[in-house]
């Protein structure tokens, strides 16, 4: 339990720093940055109450907002996927899951984890970019941004997960 807590706090700090120090400075194809910090929400252990999951998701979103001057946008998107996590988990993995284990390749299978990550990342990015675009209407550009963003983040998440899996 304590172990899980420490790991949680450590991964929170590492992912936030990685996001604001490195990833926010990467603009691939000059249209989108990868948002690896979502990995924190994906990896929250199973079996914590949904309230906590929603709250932690909100928290990491708010911290990222603070660093990137987008008050509320990341927080709103993260809160939403924090809320959706449980239903998506049930949809992607049909069997009962052990409490306090974390979502991973070995637990869900490659396809299972990929689907789980894809759905949550897609919802997160769509929400984030739509909120950001509220003042503008350029549907084509918006779609391109969302798709490139999703692809980038998903690629990073799956790669990081691969290393976690090997360990």
């Amino acid at each position: 339990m304590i172990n899980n807590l420490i790991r949680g706090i450590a991964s929170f700090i590492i992912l936030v720093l990685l996001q604001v120090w490195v990833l926010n400075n990467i603009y691939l194809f000059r249209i989108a940055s990868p948002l690896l910090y979502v990995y924190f929400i994906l990896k929250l252990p199973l079996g914590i109450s949904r309230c906590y999951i929603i709250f932690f998701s909100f928290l990491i979103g708010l911290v990222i907002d603070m660093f990137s001057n987008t008050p509320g946008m990341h927080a709103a998107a993260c809160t939403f996927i924090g809320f959706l996590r449980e239903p998506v988990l049930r949809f992607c993995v049909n069997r009962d899951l052990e409490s306090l284990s974390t979502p991973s390749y070995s637990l869900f299978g490659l396809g299972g984890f990929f689907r789980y990550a894809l759905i949550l990342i897609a919802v997160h990015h769509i929400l984030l970019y739509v909120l950001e675009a509220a003042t503008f209407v350029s549907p084509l550009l918006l779609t391109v941004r969302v798709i490139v963003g999703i692809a980038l983040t998903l690629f990073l998440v799956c790669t990081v997960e691969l290393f976690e899996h090997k360990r």
Partner: protein
Amino acid sequence: MRKLIEFVLHKKHWLVFLLLEILSLFLVYQDNAYQKSVFLSSANAVAGRILSVSASVNSYFKLWDENKLLQEQNRLLQKQLLALRRQVGISDSVDFQGFMTDSIMPYFPYEFITAGVISNSVTRLSNYITIDKGREDGISPDMGVVSSNGIVGVVSLVSDNMSVVIPMLNPKLKLSCRVSRNTYFGTLVWEGKDETEAVLTELPKHAEFSIGDTIVTSGYSSIFPEGVCVGYIAGYEKSQEEAFYSLRVKLATDFSALNNVLVIKNYNQEEQLKIEEEAIGNDK
């Protein structure tokens, strides 16, 4: 009653979700840049410190380019200095150092404060820049910010040691600009597509210009002095109904490689704003 309480407790994640979501959306739509609290922006002390760590590492990688830029600037200034000396007619008396221009130069009410960029974005639809100087260094909201190539943006939020700048790459910034070789002016805005281009709208239809002309600030606002380089005309569109051109302007500043900036302090700003307000007030 007990059933109701049980029901609420059972569904309490809905409550938490709705509460936090509403809070986030409230933050999003509390849109006015001037009302945003410093606490929730990168101008707050902790976020600023953390961001400046990566900025200081980054700045080492940019030293070479920065050096090149400074040399180039030096060359231009040297050239201008010589040209001016010639104009004043002292170019042949090289060792005469006692020339004082104070009495014939008009009063120049601007001062520059150098600052380093500690966080920057170009891919979002509303971009922001954080710089490492704040109130204690004499920076206040509504000051203009320029790079060595041209205009950058306007200071919006200031804390003790950091400030947040709204750059040209943000639709909130609307800048009054004119074509350099005549006095027709329009409003420069960014359309969120390309970080190297903005659009100059409301330029009258009878205005003369050609592709490649320089666009400079008009000096009508109290934020920028007149004649600061903004960019170059890259193309234009003429709409049938409207009596205006809209020009595509290639921005002079490369926002994706911004490292050091100058903040412009205008000593006359307060006076100008006050008298303008007074004039508007009298009109009513």
